[in-house]
């Protein structure tokens, strides 16, 4: 593995460059559009040269949007805040519920454990559309309609199975002996969970948490149906720039850039965990 030929290194470099171009080109293009107005975005053929403007970002941040049909008030920053709040709390709750459950499934082969684990997963493949109408009806009766708590609850459908199943795999990859050793050394199961299992599965938990965060962030059907305008996430908010007087591509691009930023910051911050894999290293195997 270490002794790679020059040719191979070049081929790998080319392959990686192609990958980066394919995945990053649209992102770069969106970033460029976010500094333009429709006037320069909609040119035939599209051109690279343009005079950058901060108007889109100004509009989003100040909440005033100038369009063909006058000035519109927009609640983008409010949407952004809702997204942050909903995603963070949903993932936090899902971690709180999912990690112990994942640990139970990984470490204790108890009666019905596989069935329970599968049931939890099966919520993931109940299409949102299937439960929406009854859910709306019941939420209304329970007083959960149009509440953050109700939304966070429903968001568990997105976050919990993901966290449960990914983290479970990581827990199972920790050799049981390591935990046994800690128990035998005189520590309780909880201390073992906290001091051994959690740190060792840390990268897996971080990765699952981030993925759950992204999926929660990208969802909008639940909030759309179950909550009023002041609780809508940025995914719904960004659609506001598809106006009857035209699609404001510049603003949508800026909205995408702004909505990626928090997640990207989170990912860069947790980078070390995300791409490390299990921290067992040489001990494993």
């Amino acid at each position, binding site marked *: 593995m270490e002794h790679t030929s020059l040719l191979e290194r070049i081929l790998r470099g080319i392959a990686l460059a192609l990958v980066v171009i394919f995945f990053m080109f649209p992102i770069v293009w969106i970033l460029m559009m976010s500094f333009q107005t429709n006037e320069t975005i909609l040119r035939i053929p599209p051109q690279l040269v343009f005079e950058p403007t901060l108007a889109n970002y100004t509009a989003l941040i100040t909440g005033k949007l100038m369009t063909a049909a006058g000035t519109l008030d927009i609640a983008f920053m409010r949407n952004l805040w809702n997204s942050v709040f909903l995603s963070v709390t949903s993932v936090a709750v899902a971690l709180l519920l999912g990690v112990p459950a994942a640990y139970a499934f990984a470490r204790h082969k108890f009666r019905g454990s596989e069935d329970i684990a599968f049931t939890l997963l099966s919520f993931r493949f109940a299409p949102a559309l299937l439960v929406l109408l009854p859910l709306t009806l019941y939420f209304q009766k329970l007083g959960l309609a149009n509440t953050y708590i109700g939304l966070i609850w429903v968001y568990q459908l997105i976050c919990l199975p993901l966290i449960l199943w990914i983290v479970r795999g990581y827990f199972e990859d920790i*050799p*049981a*002996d*390591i935990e*046994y*050793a*800690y*128990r*035998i*050394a*005189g*520590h*309780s*199961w909880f*201390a073992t969970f906290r001091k*051994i299992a959690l*740190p*060792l599965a840390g990268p897996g938990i971080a990765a699952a948490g981030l993925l759950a965060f992204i999926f929660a962030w990208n969802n909008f059907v639940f909030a759309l149906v179950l909550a009023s305008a002041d609780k809508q996430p940025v995914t719904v908010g960004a659609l506001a720039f598809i106006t009857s007087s035209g699609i404001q591509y510049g603003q949508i691009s800026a909205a995408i850039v702004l909505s990626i930023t928090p997640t990207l910051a989170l990912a860069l911050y947790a980078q070390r965990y995300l791409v490390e894999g299990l*921290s*067992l*290293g*040489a*001990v494993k195997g």
Partner: protein
Amino acid sequence: MASLELRNIVKRYKSQTVLDNLSLTVADGETLVLFGPSGAGKTVLLRLVAGVIDPDEGKILIGGEDMTDVDAEFRGVGMAFQNFALFPHMTAFDNIATPLQAKHSSQGTIKAGVESVGKLLKIGHVLSHKPRALSNGQKQRTALARALVGSPPLLLLDDPLRNVDAKLRFEMRLELPRLLADRGATVVYVTQDYKEAMALGDRIAVMSQGVVKQLGTPEQIYREPANVEIARLFGDPTINLLDVKPSRDAKGVYVGLSNVQVHLAGAHEAAVGRDCVIGLRPEALAFVDEGTSGAIPVTVEAETPLNEKIVTLVRTVRGREILVSRPSGIPGQSEGRAHIAVDSKSALLFDRASGERIGSKNVVNLRSGEAA
């Protein structure tokens, strides 16, 4: 203090019975070696004692106290794992300190305890390293140190020398008995290496397929193995096994080997007329001059020096291959025709069908619960 008693332990995994109604007693301060091939249930037994898995039936008593339902952390045992099971995110020092931390010892006590055991095991200089940075030998010593540091009355060592190189294994084999004796702890030691078993064990329990086939001192196991299988497991080079049908004449019981009547010393009456296997340890055979009584003519095929011994492969006139071993100093024959003789006192006779030894005296049949 910390005797260990297992009563009628049964452990199943799905349909497979891993431990089958097993009972065993280890006296306080005794070192018991669990010996057997992999899959015999040794490791499972150790984990049952440690309390990290539960038996389906039976009781576990430590120091006379029923510990069957007690969680691992309250059993007060120390354990070293075959694969070391070090905590990869902690330094060697922290690894070793975990049993002391569990007792809420003061920082000073912990430091002193870890450093002293570290010094004892010659890993004082790597205590600040994480397992990733340790050599295999250092890992093994760290794992051992972690088991020893709390001075547990009962020590469980699961083949701790399995994953270290030959040199280190040799050193440790010499070092460990003293170390364990100094601690005065009751030890249950699992190994697949018969030399380790012989070197370390006050007694050896030979396990196979979830039951103890034989329990005895190393001497007993070697001299009077309960069956062919045990006889084959102990001894290097392996015991020679030849099909025979003992007969009797005026001089006593004899067997025919290459048309030579070899008379056996000892009580072998029961074997007369039965299809048997005779077990001849290579060191119980010796080259003799032609014409010696009971001398068997053979052809020397090959000669191999093995440590302090020389092993010779010979072939009888009937074409059966036999290993003969002699201490290096003793002259032998390295080629051509030769004659060997049997030390008639150490010959072992086994029933060919069941493999059980015939004429056993001291062998204990543990399955029926009879102790020696």
